[in-house]
């Protein structure tokens, strides 16, 4: 995490200037104004001094103050984290709810029209830009049918479109992965043995095959979480969804160093935590794996 924040803190300072961003609008700074504000914000000091201050603050939970409004960064993040987590969790849920049954029906009847249809849809899903899908959903369900609010975070109905956008795109990859994993398991000897014992298809599939195919799939979903955060940025912009993605994006264009560093540190922590949870879940899925 230190490496990630160090890289981000360094990269964001390579170009641009937070003070000039403050002047964005209708005026122009002169050189003394720039120096004055630089000093007040503390960005006139050497990079390592600034970074050490941030890193020591990180250990005590003090992430500094936003350049833009003086608010503590930890508070800004606390305000935004529910939005992002709701979005990430609900899109993961949608994707799992869709990809598991689709992958099963596709793997069981490999080569059938169901399989072909599922693979075709997942290919279309993979090639979709998510902002386009988001705009189409808004036009159909927000403007045309008026079933759902086009943007914002008002109630549970607001979650549906952004979560579906992200969820559908995740489904496209998950279906392929889970299908491949299932096919591999279904061709193993113990499945053949289970079948020859006369076990019903249901038991073979859900008790023996799915559990063994789950390990690679769950690992992949954990890895996906990092990518999901990236997708969240765009979806949050289109749906005007208040979350960490837009917070980080604005912090980059404003060169609001404390906010960006703080957000990246928290996101890195979340990704690490999710992957740790997934490692622990292996033990539950497969009792042979002993976490301790």
């Amino acid at each position: 995490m230190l490496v990630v924040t160090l890289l981000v803190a360094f990269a964001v300072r390579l170009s641009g200037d937070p003070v000039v961003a403050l002047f964005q609008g209708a005026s122009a700074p002169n050189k003394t104004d720039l120096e004055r504000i630089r000093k007040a914000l503390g960005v006139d000091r050497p990079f390592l001094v600034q970074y050490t201050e941030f890193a020591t603050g990180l250990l005590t939970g003090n992430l500094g103050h936003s350049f833009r409004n003086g608010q503590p960064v930890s508070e800004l993040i606390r305000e935004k984290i529910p939005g992002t987590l709701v979005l990430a969790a609900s899109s993961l849920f949608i994707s799992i709810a869709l990809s598991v049954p689709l992958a099963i029906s596709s793997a069981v009847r490999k080569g059938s029209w169901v399989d072909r249809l599922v693979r075709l849809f997942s290919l279309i899903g993979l090639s979709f830009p998510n902002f386009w899908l988001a705009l189409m959903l808004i036009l159909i369900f927000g403007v045309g049918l008026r079933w759902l609010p086009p943007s914002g975070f008002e109630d549970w109905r607001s979650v549906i479109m952004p979560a579906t956008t992200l969820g559908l795109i995740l489904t496209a990859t998950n279906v392929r992965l889970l299908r491949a994993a299932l096919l591999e398991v279904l061709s193993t000897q113990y499945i053949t043995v289970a079948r020859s014992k006369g076990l019903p298809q249901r038991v073979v599939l859900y008790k023996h095959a799915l559990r063994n195919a789950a390990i690679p799939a769950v690992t992949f979903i954990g890895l996906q979480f990092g990518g999901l955060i990236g997708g969240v940025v765009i979806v949050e912009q289109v749906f005007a969804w208040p979350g960490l993605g837009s917070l980080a994006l604005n912090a980059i264009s404003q060169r609001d160093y404390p906010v960006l560093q703080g957000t990246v540190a928290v996101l890195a922590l979340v990704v690490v935590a999710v992957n740790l949870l997934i490692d622990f879940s292996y033990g539950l899925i497969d009792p042979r794996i002993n976490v301790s």
Partner: protein
Amino acid sequence: MKAGIKLFSVLALTLGLGVALSQSPGPTGKLVIAQTQDPHSWDPIDTFLLSWGMVGSNIFDGLVDRGPDLKIKPGLAERWVFLKNNSVIRFTLRKGVKFQNGEDFDASAVKFTFDRLLGDEGAKGPQQANYTAIKDVKVVSKYIVEFNMSRPDPVIITKLAGYGAKIIPPKYYKEVGDEKFNNLPVGTGPFRPTEYVKDDHLTLEAFTGYWGGSPKVKTITYRFIPEASTRVAELQAGRADIVQGVPVSLASVVKGIGDAELVPVGTTTVTELRFNTSMKPMDDVRVRRAMIYAVDRDTIIKTILQGYGKPIASFQGEISWGFDPKLKPLPYDPAKAKALLAEAKVPSGTEVEIDFTDTDVQFREVAQGIAGYLQAVGLKVNLKTFEQNTYFSDIIPKNKTGHMYNFGWGGWTLDFDNTAYLLYHKDEYWNPVFSDPKVEALLEKERGTYNQKARQKSMQELARYLQEIAIEMPLYQGVNLWGMNKRVSGWVVPPDDRNRLVNVSVK
């Protein structure tokens, strides 16, 4: 005299009663506005963003005010007078004004506001820079304050209508502290902020004790929606009443909405291609003039901007003090352009670069249009884009641009002084290379006097001279497009984004 005042107040009272009786009792209804950006702080001294002015103009008042007609008029000060050879400005304040929390407005609030702006708290923000000509503010009596000037500033009165000079309540500010004030401030304006969720919405409630008369609508919700298509979708779905920033590409969509209309308004923002005179062949005035003759700016406005723009001759719009109606843009004349290039011995196929920011979708099209025209007179054009912050902090001020670069200017004081000084005076932040003794002399002459007519003359002369030496290619004065639901009435569309809503009502 006293009787006169009495009669007047009786008259005013009856008139006021008459108005009150003829209307519904108090403000009603809810207005939803979709705007492009959340400035993240509602403190007047923290920002220059127009998105602050969209909202802040309803929360706060300044000593002077500038309405949608862009004329300066009394605000919280009823009148002002210049004393002691213009080194002191004395303001007589309006009586009986209250802040939205019930606090009284008087001279101490004015002093507190400017002490904060010119002190340490102001030093952290960008607004202080505008008011450094003020040395200090002195309370003379409860309703009289004096501004002591450290140097002359002929546009100071206009600047006092700016964001940074909005008056804040001392008691409330000290009570809640800076952080809470940033989120839910209090002013003397017609609406008070009551709920704020960053990057999502801000809610304002009507303040019936507003000195300028009670607002008509009860609640205003500003929603922050960065994506233009989504803003327009909210208008289509009937969930937003006023939508800011409709791009030209979506103008026809908004026109097609049955219960909404497209509202264009001319702005003060101007767009140009600035020439980098430190590069060859741009150091030759003939080449610079040739570039301007080569480009058909009218056609670019008619096609790419779909007519939502106005041609300009200098880098200012019609409402700018210093605008000269007699000065016309150089015409489109490709033959003359070719002749001038030949005269300057610029070989055919010479490469020139046009720079702009990567997120400006509309200017990308404009740049492609310009490139086409320049190619037609024998030049080879490269288009190059930069990330916005890098462009404005590293590329332009450090003279790392190509031969020409896109530049836009709001000119919020509506006075060419602001534009001209910061863009053409040597060694300014936005002017790393250009310098000319005649320009310097005209600027000094204009800055040294409060005689507005004389200033106007100097600035018109300056604009004419700048066109002669072709320091830039002025392109157009912008038109902002707004979308409005037809249930809204009484809305005057502001050219400067200061969207005042005190007289707006909704059906």
